[in-house]
């Protein structure tokens, strides 16, 4: 084989095209790929990998959430997916790029929700995720001794006796007795298919007043959060935010009926003692803010309402607004959640891991090169081995990590493992090719590729249970049946296959009953995927090309 023949060889072309495609995928076309740091004393390349790194390199937080429910199996999966959708909406309001929320099956019919974000602020994240998210807007209904309250055409009487408030309907047979913390719902309120809720919030000993609150609308009534009209104003340690929401017509009517029980002040609604009737905004029954209520709400059923809040700094106000908008848009969680696992990496630590990974990949290629050089002492053999190893890394980075994969710490370990198996195979090819000339080149490569394919199948087989243990478990059962069938079909050839087949079936049945789940080992998924892909890239692209190159050198 001369140089011309080598260059015409399709295996070399496949390798060349793969490297070219990887380059195209790695380079951010249209942007400058060469960068200097702000000090100008460091230089580097920007690649499309920059946005595809896991929290281990970019810094961030990964949380595993457990649902507070007795459901299991499919019901739990459905519930977990509802929670996932709610959390996705909440996180999208936090201005965190590419938050990832997914339901994972940890085995044994148990499901959890995994959240991964690039923020290291675990406190804020927990605050947003763990909040049940039930929002209510309430108006105060103080009951000192007794008072009347109208809801549409229906009149009700509230009467305090010691700490208990008795409610009676004058136009119907409604009657209820409330103690602190109780809640009632009244359906005769002049609004179709809508109940008015009253909450007995607290009892003030000093004024002997029972403070009830009427719910004007809740998070479920909000049809749209108009984030586009959000405003931040103020300064000097007192920043305010505001944004409009659109509520359902039923809840608007409910609010009108409740508001008609207050005095119409010049600007705002007032209590009987002429103090402002302040609207209270609650999230998970915690008071978030209280606002004056414009008089217009006492005369019109307005579906547009403005939510307000604040913070000491502009940033705090923005954060609070984002969190509240997220909760209002997403609604309440289908079930309360608890954090059962959390991982946080600071950006500093992520940077250190990145440095270690880059140095390790380059260093391992050099170290392998030196080890191989010690054996062959021939740069014509060693350089192609190192080049082929580097090509595998390059193709993996370009074709996989810029498109599908996430570059994580376990992926780096997988890259190094894949380089190792690749170099092993090239050593096998080199040694097979150099053996005595009793056999032709084809037979030599057949021997080499028998070893390569068998070891590739073993390694891929060892990695697959990390990703899909259920499927592997079934496949092992099928393989066991196949081995037994083969022995019977071949009339007793390889009788030990009966025992191995039976053992495989036992393993399959045993592991299946345990409820295998790949998601439980999700932290090392990228390790398994990268190793498997590295091996596949090796046996389909780089090793055939390397074999041809060695043939060229040997001839």
């Amino acid at each position, binding site marked *: 084989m001369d140089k011309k023949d080598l260059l015409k060889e399709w295996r070399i072309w496949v390798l060349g095209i793969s490297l070219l495609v990887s380059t195209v995928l790695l380079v951010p076309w249209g942007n400058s790929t060469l960068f200097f740091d702000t000090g100008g004393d460091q230089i580097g390349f920007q690649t499309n990998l920059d946005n595809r790194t896991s929290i281990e390199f970019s810094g961030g937080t990964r949380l595993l959430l457990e649902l507070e429910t007795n459901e299991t199996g499919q019901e739990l999966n459905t519930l977990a997916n509802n929670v996932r959708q709610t959390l996705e909406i909440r996180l999208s309001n936090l201005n965190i790029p590419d938050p990832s929320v997914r339901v994972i099956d940890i085995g044994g019919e148990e499901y959890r929700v995994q959240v991964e974000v690039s923020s290291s602020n675990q406190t804020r994240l927990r605050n947003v995720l763990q909040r049940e998210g039930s929002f209510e807007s309430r108006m105060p209904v103080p009951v000192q001794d007794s008072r009347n309250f109208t809801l549409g055409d229906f009149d009700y009487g509230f009467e305090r006796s010691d700490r208990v408030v008795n409610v009676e309907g004058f136009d119907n047979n409604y009657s209820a007795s409330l103690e602190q913390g109780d809640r009632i719902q009244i359906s005769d309120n002049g609004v179709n298919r809508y109940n008015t809720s009253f909450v007995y919030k607290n009892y003030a000993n000093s004024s002997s007043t029972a403070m009830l609150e009427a719910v004007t609308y809740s998070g479920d009534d909000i049809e749209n959060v108009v984030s586009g009209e959000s405003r931040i104003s103020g300064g000097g340690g007192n920043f305010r935010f505001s944004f409009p929401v659109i509520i359902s017509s039923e809840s608007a009517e409910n609010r009108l009926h409740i508001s008609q029980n207050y005095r119409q002040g010049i600007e705002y609604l007032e209590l009987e003692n002429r103090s402002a009737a302040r609207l209270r905004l609650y999230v998970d029954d915690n008071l978030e803010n209280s606002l004056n209520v414009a008089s217009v709400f006492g005369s019109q059923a307005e579906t547009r309402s403005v939510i307000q809040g604040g913070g000491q700094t502009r940033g705090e106000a923005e954060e609070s607004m984002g969190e509240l908008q997220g909760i209002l848009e997403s609604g309440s969680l289908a079930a309360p959640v608890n954090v059962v696992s959390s991982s946080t990496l600071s950006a500093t630590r992520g940077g250190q891991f990145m440095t270690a990974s880059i140095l*390790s990949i380059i260093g391992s290629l050099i170290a392998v090169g030196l080890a191989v050089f010690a054996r062959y002492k021939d740069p014509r053999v060693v350089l192609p081995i190192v080049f082929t190893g580097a090509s595998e890394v390059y193709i993996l980075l370009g074709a996989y990590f810029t498109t599908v994969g996430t570059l994580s710490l376990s992926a780096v370990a997988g890259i190094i493992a894949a380089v190792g198996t690749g170099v092993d195979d090239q050593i096998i090819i080199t040694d097979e090719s150099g053996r005595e000339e009793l056999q032709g080149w084809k037979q030599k490569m057949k021997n080499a590729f028998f070893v390569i394919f068998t070891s590739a199948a073993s390694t891929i087989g*060892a990695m697959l249970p990390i990703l899909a243990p259920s499927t592997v478990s079934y496949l092992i059962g099928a393989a066991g049946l196949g081995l037994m069938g083969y022995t019977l079909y071949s009339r007793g050839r390889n009788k030990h296959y009966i025992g191995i087949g039976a053992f495989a079936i036992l393993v399959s049945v045993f592991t299946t009953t345990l409820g295998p789940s790949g998601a439980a*080992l999700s932290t090392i998924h990228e390790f398994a995927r990268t190793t498997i892909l590295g091996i596949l890239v090796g046996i389909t692209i780089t090793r055939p090309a390397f074999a041809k190159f060695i043939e060229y050198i040997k001839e």
Partner: protein
Amino acid sequence: MGLESRLEERYSGIYDSHQKFFLVPVVLILLSAGALGFSYLGNGEFLDKGTDFTGGTEAQFNVNGSFDPVEIEQVFSSAGKPGANVIVQETTEGDNLLVEIPPPDISQDEARQILEDAGYSVEVLQFNSISASVSEQFFVQAQIAFVLAFTVMSIVIFTAFKDITPSIAVVFAAAGDILVAGAGMVILGIPLTLGSLAALLMLIGYSVDTDIVLSSRSLNRERGSLESRMWESLKTGVTMSSGGIAGFTLLYIVSYLVVGPSELSNIASVMVIGLMADMPLTWLGNTAILKSYIEGESLIYRGGN
């Protein structure tokens, strides 16, 4: 006489006394089993399970100023978190504080608050916590993955070689590698985590490479004597293992220097131990089994040569 010729001559001596040298891997496996058994008697576990599989909290802090690990253990104990294990991690960017707290898991804020209340100014570099129930489920899944991986590898080997003896030799060599790597983890104090589990699974695939080279060449009777075929296999296999050992040693050194002990250094050390164990197990153990099988000799060492 060149180095290679001298090594070949030395190998010839080993080849002739394969029964005697077969004791080396046997003793290695027995010692490893002993180390694992000792660990089991000591703490009820063959391998020291990491936070991934026991639950609890593991946090790394950058401390502004000096700190005393014993004092920090007491700080956590006084805050109602007894049993905290504090390690000082030396990295190229200074000393970090690694705190391991047994279950129940605590939150990042809680851990930082305990240190700040004790007068330390800290920055959280890394924080992992996991509840005991979830980690228990992870451990079940890890064991399932391990059993499946080993079964798949065994089926591949039995199908590829068909003959029972060479196949069993390969499978035993792989099991031996895992056993020795496990013993190495016990001796060096490397915990079983998701990372080290990945390394053990990888070792299943990695360790059979050399065994496949040896078995396929030894069983191919068309070329040269068995001794020369085995010698050629050894040269190939040792180069393969050396490449792997060199690569993973470098991964260990670099990751240890840059970030201190981490999942990367755990993976690297498990791989290095396993690959080093693979050499005697393959070239003294598997070789002896194959030689006995091919030449019909007894494998039992009865003294003498």
